[in-house]
């Protein structure tokens, strides 16, 4: 019996060991993406889904750039995170992002150099640009007399009760900086105090501040309750398509704002290669053009943009105006002090 017993024990030990090895080796085919809501739609990463059907992709959501940053700082397990121009520096400074190995990307050559540059910090490629678009003023041409030519329309008492500003402090500072011709990166305390006073005065003019372009902004533009709104081009294209209201998208004399969405890979990820593959596949033709045709956001694959022939989309992205990007302003990087001062300023505006 002892011999048999020993064999049995050895078998058990072997089994246990192999179980441990298996558990360690079978790196779970899982990706967690910290996203803005709406982007989880499989159509926007369909190339990856097709190529890697056994990978479970799940999503965690943030509702602002500050929120995404806070979630990463709070120890989010996400492998990939998504944020917008202006917030590049923090992740690098706090060691939360891994460099993008562009040599492994098959779609990298389709990204315009100007976008690549926005994903660089300290001369290194930390981020992969993906979606892009404008910020300007969407307005109802039935209710608004004449053309809107300046950002100050958002603060115009003529439209009282029918304005909607995005619920975001840094965005409010940007708009004010455009109106006053101030350098966004060098807002002084006095200027910030003036900005606060102006937005406090603007507050009663809003129907409400919106939080999601397709959630609580667009339905009320379509119903005719909102006449003048801070908007990315998504709702503009939506209303052009459904024809519910006659709308225009302003070309303010101060210039539109432009933004680019950037993806970073968390320095904590155990699945770097898989994450990189996910991002590379997002740049592929189908995923990118789905973003353009279904979400009405631009995509960093320039072949996809060049192939756009739908008149509504051409209008929405101003593709018929080759100089459009020259008279738009990209959001410059913010500092931690500005970020806090601006969000606190906005909180005081909201509580007024």
């Amino acid at each position: 019996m002892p011999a048999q017993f020993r064999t049995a024990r050895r078998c058990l030990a072997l089994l246990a060991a192999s179980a441990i090895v298996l558990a360690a080796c079978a790196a779970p085919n899982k990706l967690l993406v910290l996203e803005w809501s709406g982007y989880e739609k499989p159509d926007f990463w369909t190339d990856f889904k097709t190529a890697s059907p056994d990978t479970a992709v799940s999503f965690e959501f943030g509702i602002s750039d500050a929120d995404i940053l806070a979630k990463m700082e709070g120890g989010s397990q996400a492998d990939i995170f998504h944020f917008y121009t202006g917030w590049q520096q923090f992740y690098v400074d706090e060691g939360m992002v891994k460099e993008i190995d562009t040599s492994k990307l098959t779609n990298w050559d389709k990204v315009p150099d100007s976008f690549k540059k926005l994903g660089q910090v300290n001369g290194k490629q930390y981020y992969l640009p993906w979606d892009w678009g404008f910020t300007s003023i969407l307005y109802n041409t039935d209710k608004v007399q004449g053309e809107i030519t300046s950002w100050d329309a958002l603060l115009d008492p003529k439209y009282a009760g029918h304005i909607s500003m995005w619920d975001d402090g840094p965005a409010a500072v940007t708009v004010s900086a455009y109106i006053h011709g101030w350098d966004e990166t060098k807002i002084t305390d006095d200027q910030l105090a003036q900005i606060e006073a102006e937005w406090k005065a603007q507050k009663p003019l809003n129907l409400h501040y919106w939080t999601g372009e397709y959630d609580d902004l667009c339905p009320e533009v379509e119903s005719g309750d909102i006449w003048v709104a801070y908007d990315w081009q998504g709702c503009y294209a939506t209303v052009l398509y459904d024809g519910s209201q006659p709308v225009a998208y302003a070309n303010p004399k101060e210039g539109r704002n432009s933004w680019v969405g950037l993806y970073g890979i968390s320095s904590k990820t155990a699945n770097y290669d898989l994450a990189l593959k996910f991002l590379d596949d997002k740049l592929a033709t189908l995923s990118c053009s789905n973003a353009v045709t279904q979400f009405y956001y631009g995509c960093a694959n320039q072949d996809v943009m060049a192939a756009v022939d739908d008149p509504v989309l051409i209008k929405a992205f101003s593709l018929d105006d080759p100089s459009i990007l020259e008279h738009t302003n990209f959001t410059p990087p913010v500092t931690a002090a500005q970020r806090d001062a601006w969000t606190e300023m906005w909180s005081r505006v909201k509580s007024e």
Partner: protein
Amino acid sequence: MLGRRGSLRFLAAPPFVWLTLLFILPLLMAIAISFRPHVGPISFVTGWDLSLLQYKKVVDSPSWLRLLGISIGMAFVIAAVATVLAFPIAYFLAFRARARAPIFLVLLLVPSATSFLLRVMAWKLLLGSNGAINSFLIWIGLIREPIGLLLYSQAAVIITLIYVWIPFAALPIYAALQRIDRSHLEAAADLGSGPWTRFYRVTVPLSFPGLVATFVMVFIPTIGEYVTPVLVGGTKGIMYGNLIQDFFTRAGNWPLGSALAVVMLGVTLLLVVVALRIVDLRRVVA
């Protein structure tokens, strides 16, 4: 074998430990973090250079404290009106419904069993300019153009919350009324008092502790409300809870959000202490 001391330990230790870990410790944690000057990763190990910076910001922003006052005022109105409106329902159920009481109880439960969020949403749909009220009035030809938005105001928040709380408030009042000894009322009637006198000399005083308990049960959660204002409040219906929510979920400034939460906690507890001074809690419990 458990002795008597062992039994006590067996009973008292788990709730003590549970509440210390999941109630006291988190509140202490929030208080501690409110004294941290920096935004950034939160850990037990680093970042404990304490300062009063966040509280200085709170004091320097009168609009925040004013909003706390407004929120308390709104909660007071909501709790008072909901309690008063719930009283006749509970009274009817306890004294008039008799054999049909179980049916009426079900009727009362229907609204409280419907998702809180959907009941809030229902008001949004009712009040909106394309909402059920407007489209119904247009459909039957009473009006041509939708009447202006009833939505997105402080009043919309107050009305919606009163509506949401009424069924919830009616239940404890109903319980309190049921406990009233009918012989008191009969004695009063025998002594010659009319129905009104009986009502406000006997019924109301005897159910008063239940009314106070109901008021407090509505008042406290309403002070911290942030979900309803987001849905129906617009820019004018914002409450103090929204500021806290903003600093946690939108601005990512946890130390300042914690300071605002601590201020709210302090004020709420103060109000509870004052309330306990005015109303003898032992009577409420008994």
